[in-house]
């Protein structure tokens, strides 16, 4: 086992453990903080894969914006930030089976793919990953249409939010 594999396993365990804490802890703010640990672990995974742009964007968007929004929403809406009541409902065994089957199916699918056990080749030192990503996002034969559609969707959401909040005199 190489040092990188050990590191990957540790990061994976941290992600799984903290994700489990998100759903089991009873304090809502603690759940949000554990979620931040999970999201940070995913950013570390991106960094291991040499996807520095995605790693940094993961931290900026998910920790810097979404997690902070979560904490604000929880603080402003709940007086008592503690969740009482049972943590499992009657259909827990059904959900457990479905998630195990999904995991097993994905595992089987990936195992039958011939790239599963190969080690990835290193990028050549002159490879500009961020530049390539930027070009892919704006070139017509790559992702310009999904990128622009997503931008228009966000703009529409923004206009909608302003319209709802607008105080007509």
């Amino acid at each position, binding site marked *: 086992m190489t*040092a990188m594999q050990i590191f990957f396993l540790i990061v994976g365990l941290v992600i799984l453990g903290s994700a489990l804490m998100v759903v089991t802890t009873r304090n809502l*703010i*603690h759940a949000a*903080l554990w979620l*931040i640990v999970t999201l940070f672990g995913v950013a570390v995974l991106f960094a291991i894969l040499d996807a*520095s*742009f995605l790693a*940094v*964007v993961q*931290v*900026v968007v998910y*920790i*810097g*914006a979404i*997690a*902070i929004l979560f*904490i*604000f929403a929880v*603080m402003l809406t709940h007086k008592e930030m503690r969740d009482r009541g049972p943590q499992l409902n009657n259909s827990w065994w059904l959900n457990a089976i479905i998630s195990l089957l999904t995991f097993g199916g994905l595992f089987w699918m990936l195992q039958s793919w011939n790239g599963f056990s190969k080690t990835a080749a290193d990028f050549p030192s002159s490879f*500009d*990953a*961020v530049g390539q990503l930027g070009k892919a996002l704006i070139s017509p034969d790559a992702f310009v249409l999904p990128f622009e559609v997503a931008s228009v969707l966000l703009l529409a959401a923004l206009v909608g939010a302003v319209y709802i909040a607008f105080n007509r005199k």
Partner: protein
Amino acid sequence: MNFWSDPVNFIAHWLTRLFIGWGMVGWLASLIIQLIGVVVLISIMMVLDIFLVWVERKVVARFQDRLGPNRVGPFGLIQPFADIIKLLIKEDITPDGADKVVYNLAPILSLMSVLLLWAIVPLAPVIFGVDLNVGALYIVAAGSIGTLSIIMAAWSSNNKYALIGAFRQVAVLVSFEIPMIATMLIPTILAGSMGMNEIVQGQQTVWYVVLAPLAALIFMIAAIAELGRSPFDLNEAESEIVAGFHIEYTGMKFGLFYAGELLHAFTFGGFWAILFLGGYRFFGLENLGPLVAAVILLAKAMFGYWVIMWIRYTVMRIRIDHMLAFNWKFLTPAAFVLLMLTALMNTLLRGTPSGIYIPGMFLTNVLLGWIIVEILRGYSRSERQKTENVAPAAATAHH
């Protein structure tokens, strides 16, 4: 390779040879050397931080026509050490009902978010932690950890003043982040890279403050707001919320917040220098050696820090609604228009000789600045007329 042309790599190679001579495995030796590098960089920054306490107090004393610390040691230089001893031996109080783990984690994260920034600072062409190709975004990512630490500190303190202070501070941080990112993209466009090293190398012929003076100004304003310093220091208000989010912290835990704040100001001075003032360049003086270049960068960072202090101690604070309106209705649109205009002009003028390129970019900024001032003048004129036409409340009450 000799010491004066590449000191860090010279020492690293020497240590590698030494460790491998002791029978260490190659990867372990390089790991230990990387860790030593991190510890040395952080130690230098923390020692500088102690010195910054003295600088801040002396400069504020000058602005307020006082002497500042002058009793302990020559020019009061030993004063920060006395302060540190005081902070260390103070009673460490954790309030009742505080969330202990989060409460103790918050000051560490706060200082960490600042120290993380120094990983990408190019002190010299050959002295830097890591040359990250997404440097500009990395600054924002490290800042978001700082934002998180403020919420954590406030919530875990179990104190309403702390929570209100954090709400104010985070509202400011989240909103002023946007013009800051927009203006950080302007050096990115001019240099063609988000990496700090390439941005400094792109300023070989001319500093970006000449090509984008408005961007440098907006970045500085947004940076001061991010730091929570006057005129944007609403996180601290003695008569309303006392000390804001760190109200419950005592001793060295408060010290970590304070050290983080001072180092943050110095660091933003440094990034201002890197993005707009040519980084370690100073009219060819940086060619004398990497150590000279590092001193130049630290001197420029100190200049940026001085500008931040100059504004802090001479400008009055702004009300929070004015502050957010100023950001959303003025700074953010201005930054985005400037970003689009800079991208357009840079594409149009890229091939031209520098005799046209540099004045062209400069005049674009001047023109935009003039238009912004005209719009503001028109707006304030209409607002003034509105208030002049309304009769005073007392006069109308009589009729």
